[in-house]
């Protein structure tokens, strides 16, 4: 027995760009949670160990946030401006640079302090009833504000870069300077330590250069010229590629080839202030004063996605597994954007448990195993018919058309409405279906035509329909003001469409001329 053939609803092809998987991946974030601070947030760092704390530095404060609750769990206030608060790899210590030429190291959690080697310091802090946030170490050999302060991979050394153009490496145990190098000619505003090597550091300066330094030989091993003051730099984990940003450009350099420029990306229209890698170093994220975050695919350096923010972005952080994007803006807004939670198998299971789902109810096939000799008759499920299909099946043309013009159908799937109309034309009952309409449903029909006639996919059908309508109702026109009004609107739309198409013809002519001329030129 053949079943009723339903109206095929054609999928509307929307020309334009097709969203790639990567673009969809970066669109898949929830509405951001925003926290208001009072100064531009100039640095964000994310702890690599769970529960991934986020440290945000703004003006004279450093706040540590819980990335799940989005609340500040600890805050440090200073009497001067702080810069570059960043975690140690194990998430137990934090270092901060200051305007008055020094850098300090703080413990993150009080209860963890006993694990540290510095017994004397911790005892004094624990003894007080209200533990004061006293620094563990203070490094004050610099001659200018310390804008960069990062732990080295070996956990016991701290790299600091200052406006006095010097790079220093301090020993955590003794707070002595281990290495000192005047690497640049201008302020050093960005720095980065290698994640695989204990000895490689990278610095970017306002003298337009990025330099890689080997601490074992205490000298610069590679210098590249970015062309503009360098705002931020990143090193790939293998330490053989380097990303720098400054001005509105982002550049990628090959270290092994001695600082060869691999690629330049100019996709921002204002200064790029911050860079970050996504999970597994698959994507590169850049943030700029133009309020955008751009995502680049690191396989081919293509722009994958763009995220918009309300004001100029100064700093950016990505949580492990791209779980959340943390963005600091110039007017003190700190935005957390979480990845949407998807219906994973586990998630669905838990939902079922809540609803009291009984797995045995529909499990007959799994409980009862048929033998090979059994003849199995599958239970035929009735196909679900949409309301207009039901009417079509009963040959109620008018009702089918009315159902097809119901609010939900005509707004959400106008192509289904068109499908019904085409089916009625094919059956030859369209005239009957259109005839004798009440004023109201006629109004709806005309409005539908007026809205959709300029869609090239629908124009043919709707032109025919309107011709029939005019033939049928020519005597009624002029009787009802509301209907007349709709006809006037329909006419206006068509007038405009005609005018538009006339213009398009002109452009087609121009294009054809250009195509022909180009063919001649290339021949």
């Amino acid at each position, binding site marked *: 027995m053949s079943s009723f053939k339903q109206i095929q609803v054609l999928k509307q092809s929307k020309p334009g760009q097709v969203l790639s998987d990567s673009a969809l991946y970066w669109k898949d974030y929830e509405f951001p949670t925003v926290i208001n601070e009072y100064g531009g947030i100039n640095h964000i760092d994310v702890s690599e160990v769970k529960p991934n704390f986020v440290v945000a530095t703004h003006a004279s404060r450093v706040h540590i946030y819980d990335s799940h609750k989005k609340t500040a769990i600890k805050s440090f206030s200073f009497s001067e401006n702080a810069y570059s608060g960043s975690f140690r790899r194990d998430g137990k210590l934090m270092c901060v640079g200051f305007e008055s030429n020094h850098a300090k190291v703080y413990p993150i959690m009080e209860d963890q302090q006993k694990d540290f080697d510095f017994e004397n310091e911790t005892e004094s802090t624990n003894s007080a009833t209200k533990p004061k946030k006293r620094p563990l170490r203070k490094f004050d050999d610099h001659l200018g504000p310390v804008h960069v302060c990062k732990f080295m991979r070996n956990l016991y050394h701290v790299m600091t870069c200052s406006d006095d153009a010097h790079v220093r490496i301090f020993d955590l145990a003794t707070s002595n300077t281990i290495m000192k190098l005047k690497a640049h000619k201008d302020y050093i505003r960005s720095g980065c330590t290698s994640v695989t090597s204990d000895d490689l550091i990278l610095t970017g300066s306002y003298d337009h250069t990025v330099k890689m330094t080997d601490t074992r030989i205490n000298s610069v091993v590679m210098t590249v010229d970015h062309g503009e003051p360098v705002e931020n730099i990143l090193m790939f984990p293998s330490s053989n590629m380097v990303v720098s940003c400054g001005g509105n450009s982002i550049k990628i350099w090959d270290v092994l080839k001695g600082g060869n420029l691999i690629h330049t990306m100019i996709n921002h229209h204002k200064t790029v202030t911050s860079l970050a890698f996504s999970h597994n170093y698959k994507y590169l994220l850049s943030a700029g004063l133009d309020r955008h975050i751009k995502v680049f695919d690191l396989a081919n350096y293509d722009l994958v996605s763009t995220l918009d923010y309300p004001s100029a972005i100064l700093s950016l952080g990505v949580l492990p597994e791209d779980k959340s994007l943390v963005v600091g803006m110039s007017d003190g807004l700190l935005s957390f954007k979480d990845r949407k939670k998807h219906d994973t198998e586990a998630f669905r299971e838990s939902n079922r448990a809540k609803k009291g789902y009984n797995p045995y109810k529909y499990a007959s096939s799994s409980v009862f195993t048929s033998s090979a000799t059994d003849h199995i008759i599958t239970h035929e499920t009735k196909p679900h018919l949409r309301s207009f299909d039901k009417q079509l099946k009963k040959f109620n043309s008018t009702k089918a058309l009315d159902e097809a013009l119901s609010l939900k159908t005509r707004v959400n799937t106008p192509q289904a409405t068109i499908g019904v109309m085409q089916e009625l034309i094919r059956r030859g009952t369209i005239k009957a279906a259109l005839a004798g309409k009440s004023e109201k449903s006629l109004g709806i029909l005309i409005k539908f035509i007026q809205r959709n006639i300029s869609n*090239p996919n629908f124009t043919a059908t709707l032109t025919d329909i309107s011709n029939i309508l005019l033939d049928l109702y020519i005597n009624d026109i002029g009787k009802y003001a*509301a209907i007349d009004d709709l006809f006037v609107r329909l006419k206006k739309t068509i007038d405009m469409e005609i005018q538009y198409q006339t213009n398009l013809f002109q452009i087609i002519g121009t294009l054809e001329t250009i195509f022909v001329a180009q063919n001649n030129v290339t021949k």
Partner: protein
Amino acid sequence: MHRLANSSDLLCSISSNGDCVALCTPDGVIKFYDTLTSNLKLEYSSSTHLQAGCSCLVWSRLKRTQNTVQNSKQKKLKTNSESTNKSIETELNDLDLIALGTTDGSILIYSLSKASLHTQLSEGGHSDKVNDISWCPNYSDSIYSCSDDGYIVEWSLLESKVKAKWKASKTAITSISIDPTNNYLICSSKTITVWDLKSKTKVKTLTGHSNDIFKLQFLSQKNQDLEYFFSAAHNDRILNAWTLNSANITETSNQTLQSFTLNDGPSFLEVISIKKNDKNLEALVLAMTHKGQLCLFKYDFSSDEKSNLKKPLKPINTVKLETKEGSPLKIYAAFLANSKNEKLDLIELGNVNNESSLVDMLNNNYLYIVYGSHVNPRIEKIEFSELNETKKVLKRDDPFKTSVTLQTQATKIESPIISKDVKVLVPGQSGPQTSIGLGNQQKRKSTEPSQMTLEERLNVMGLDETNGEAYYKNGQVPKTDNLLVLLVQGLQSNDSKMLNHILQHKNDKVIAKTVRMLPTNYVVQLIKELNKRLQGHAQSGLGLIKWLKSVLMIHTSYLMSYPDLIESLGSVYEMMNARTKLFPQLSKLQGKLQLVMSQVTSQAEDLPSGNDKEPLLYYQDSTSEDEQIEDELIPSHSEFDEYVFSDEEDEEESIHDDDDDQDENMADDGDSKKILKKEVVSFKKKKELSKSSLLKKNKKDESEDDDDEDEEDDEDEDAAENGENNFGMEDDDDEDDDDEDDE
């Protein structure tokens, strides 16, 4: 420039009753100006003004009240504290004191009424620059001062000696203020510290600025126990408002209540409280930026939510001063005064609508501004009605040039007026040539800068588009928000919001100019962006067509040489072909509609004459007991009503019910009178409705699609209810169809 260097150093303070402005010139001389006339009243230079310059100027807080002038016969201190206070008050009131802090740490108290130094406070005081002084609000003889050495000192005015002194900070204290209840003292460096005045202990520390705070000011009014104060810091583009819970200090919030953004660091702060209906407390904040712009903020304390996410408030009004040549003039200070020219720190408003703008609320008050050079400062009274724009630019004479203009006036040659009839016989220059005609002189006058035409002024301001190129030649910096720059930025960063905004422009000239200057490497990208947007409705498409046309016309040669032209522009071409495929059919339909609608319009023209007669006829018809006609007519009316007035469902339903009743009545026994009434009513309604429906339709055209759909939704529901009535006839059709199909 020299001028700027001077002006930024200028210290300026306004007396608490607003009749006098004290200025400290860079050479250490204090000058007192009358606010009404801008004339110099007094001048004072301390004996040590060359070694120790003046670092701060603070007037005493006492108000001069005219009616309570008591003879200060009891100058001696009495045991009764209240009368002591009163006597001190009167004494200090009469003296009209101002405190001068100096860079060497001493404080001079100068009496304006005596025109001499009242006393000097230096022994046992500060060892470094005095940064700020605060007078006690409750008329005691204490004043507090803070200094670079980190100490706060409480002085006794009458005995001229130190009452208390304590170290408040390791670093310099830049500002100090006493709360209106005289219980707490707040002082600041980068952070704000709250001190209990009785025990001299620190009770609270607040952080909110990244730089040194130079001004703390309490609001004169408080809201129950909550007191409010404002802070401003050097080079920090925000002002902050804070609360202080005077009853329970520990409950004071650590967070700023609200911040206010400025486009430059502040140099002056003044706060006025506004009281509405004795309940709502608002604050009017006057802040001056370093560039000399005056910003007005309004903040309503009653509306505060305890949210952490409040965006900083933006100024509701800004005032800028400019010379006629367009160079900015710096405003040093500003204050608010009532119609009696008394300085205000509280405005009480009766029943004023919340909606009325600030300007309307303050209509009876005046804004005083101080500007100009220290040699010749100007004090000007501005009516609030003048500040009707949110960004007001006031044009004033350049105060630095006034002396020059005065000279030219003085040396002007007065020429004898000679009438036209007089013939000058002598060929040589016996008389001045200017005397040839009076008319000439007047014409020339009109070209003076003070009487520029609007066109000339616009040219000076650089708003005229056609003069754009001339500007570039003059070496002026082109505007950054030029359409081309925006377009290139939008294409570069693929910002669709920005591009949509740009592509909305429909002015042919603007489009052509922008496209002409567009760098060629963006041309193909622009065409692709246009293609994306061309697929919508014709209305939006018509504007974009202009862009596409001009791109194709102007960049023809580039496009011809572009190698991947067919690949990249093929889709544009295809899209257009698809769209224009049905042009003939559409044109035919257009013709058909034209014909039909022309009939309608001609009918509509006839309508008004026939309209008046119709109801009469109708009335007659229904009396003639032609029930069948009625039956047909009634539902059609109700349908009509429903269609037009979907909002008033209830009414419609009632009418509909009545209709049903009518049917019954007619079946039983035609109560024709009742029906008649209803007929007339419904017809009247119809008339009204058809009018209102037209209005409605017009509105609908403008309104969003969503609204339309909502209305339609309602209609649909109606349709479901009345389905049987409406489709009664059509059902028959359907059955016919079925029969046919069956055959």
